[in-house]
């Protein structure tokens, strides 16, 4: 169960308006069901997402909409529609620079140091729920850029999986328009893409070489068992659609597939609270990730 929010004194300017308590209930419901959390200061976002659904349903008040999510007959479908609204197609390359910074500055150096002791200089990444491929392509660009620097002497591969065949097909084709490339510099575009007309760019062979696309259902235990030896797993805004029991299984699979010292990244506001307590939550500059501890890392220490 979600714990009541802090009774901290608001630092908000004195003219900020109070939130309708029904939105607090909706916020807690979403958190309990999906693990996605809206802090007090982000309520306006939650409110605008709910309002879109409320307009579609011709519902005028938040308390009434809360009923649609909880006691009306179509509540499961409505909850899914709201989750869709929350995670709506907001995907583009280099969307989470803080994740890449954490990889470059802290995570990869520590993994390289630990793995450098053994002779196998290979890294494995997994984008679980890669949708139309923006995430694995971003990761590929990032890693290729580090090839002669941080990763000199190392090889790497990215496993990119999704359940949806259409998404996977689009991801394999790797053709993107301006929206997906809005954060991609000209230098990167020239190096890793070719112009295919119609104001679209397609990933070139250099970009595609490290990525292996595969259809995997995260609920398929038999397939999940065989993805061992991962160093970092990305699974952003995918688990929110799973019920608690399936979520636990998927996360346990991630845990056993990761090498000790490996990390799991979830979406920005997703939480594993009460889903799994084997991972350790670690804060990096502007981003959080989940660590599978090595035996030596278990327990506390000073910083």
């Amino acid at each position, binding site marked *: 169960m979600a714990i009541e929010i802090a009774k*901290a004194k608001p630092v908000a300017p004195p003219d900020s308006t109070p939130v309708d308590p029904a939105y607090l209930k909706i916020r807690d419901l979403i958190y309990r069901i999906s693990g996605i959390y809206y802090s007090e200061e982000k309520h306006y976002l939650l409110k605008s997402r709910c309002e879109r659904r409320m307009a579609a349903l011709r519902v005028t008040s938040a308390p009434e909409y809360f009923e649609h999510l909880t006691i009306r007959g179509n509540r499961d479908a409505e909850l899914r529609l709201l989750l869709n609204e929350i995670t709506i197609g907001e995907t583009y390359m280099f969307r989470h620079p803080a994740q890449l910074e954490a990889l470059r500055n802290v995570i990869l150096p520590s993994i390289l140091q630990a793995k450098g002791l053994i002779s196998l200089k290979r890294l494995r990444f997994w984008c679980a729920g890669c949708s139309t491929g923006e995430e694995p392509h971003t990761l590929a660009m990032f890693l290729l850029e580090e090839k002669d620097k941080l990763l000199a002497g190392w090889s790497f591969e990215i496993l990119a999986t999704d359940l949806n065949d259409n998404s996977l097909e689009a991801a394999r084709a790797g053709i993107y328009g301006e929206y997906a490339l809005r954060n991609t510099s000209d230098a990167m575009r020239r190096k890793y893409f070719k112009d295919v007309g119609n104001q679209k760019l397609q990933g070139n062979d250099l970009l595609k070489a490290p990525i292996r696309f595969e259809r995997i259902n995260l609920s398929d235990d038999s397939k999940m068992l065989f993805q061992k030896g991962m160093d970092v797993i990305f699974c952003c805004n995918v688990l929110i659609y799973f019920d608690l029991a399936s979520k636990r299984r998927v996360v346990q699979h991630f845990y056993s597939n990761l090498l000790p010292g490996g990390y799991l990244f979830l979406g920005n506001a997703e939480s594993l609270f009460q889903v799994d307590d084997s991972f350790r939550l670690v804060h990096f500059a502007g981003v959080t990730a989940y660590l599978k501890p090595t035996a030596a890392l278990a327990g506390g220490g000073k910083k």
Partner: protein
Amino acid sequence: MNEKLQFQLRAQISQMDSISTAPAILMPLLEMLRLPSDRISLEKVVELISYDGAIAAQCLRLANSPLFGRRQTETVRAAVMALGLERVRSMLFGLCVNRVMPQDKWVIPPDAFWRHSLGCALVTQRMANKIEYPEPEKAYLAGLLHDLGFLVNSVLYTDGFRECLRLAAEQHLALHVIEEQVLGFSHCDAGQMLCEHWGLSKELVDAARCHHDVCLLPKAGPLACLVHLSDLLCRVRYLGYGYEEFMGVDLGGDAAWQALVRSYPALEHMDLVRFTFDIDGAMDQIVATVDAVFGAKTMTAPASG
């Protein structure tokens, strides 16, 4: 830190011209900072502020700023009421310290220093409320004062400390680690001594002393633990010392968190993720508040009166 160095530093602090001859309002202000805000008299605050023309002008300017609804505030009393005692006292403290710090001695940029200190104060207070610590005001103050040792090092060891900051920024390491290597002591030691010199309570002294290592004390009090954790949170949320530290923070595995859980067993089942999301969500506002209180204009205000 060896005994000789400790003795020397203590003597230097008691002779520090700028800090020991603080503005007349600093001592009554520190006295006032020890009280919970509902025991502070508005009249007393207004009196203190009115005593100092430059500070009174800052109060009016801030109360009339867009952040507070651009009120037409013309008296100090109305300005204090518009801003709220909490903001006013952190602003007073900041202005006093800015006044006593010779401008050419700042090593950490003043805006970074205040962002970190006030950010830490606000986060410490939030955490204190969350765990139902009985004196959230004291928690706020502990956060605000925890890094005063940086000012001592800036004044007394300007060049050495500047070198520390340069090395720490270059290697993306924690500043206290480099201070230990270069100076032989850290801002924790210097802060402890300054807080003692100012006659602050033992809890505040302890928080300044062991905010980077709660294991220094056989039994760290909750205040020191709260400050330690909020200092870490601020540093991974862009409220550090003005340079990028490469670090990962495991709050739940931290010794300070474990010490807190021993004092507040309910914390064991707390949703730490959600708690940090709340803090994350508040960060933008914390930054806005800090900038409003110690914004660039405030930093360069002429020192008069």
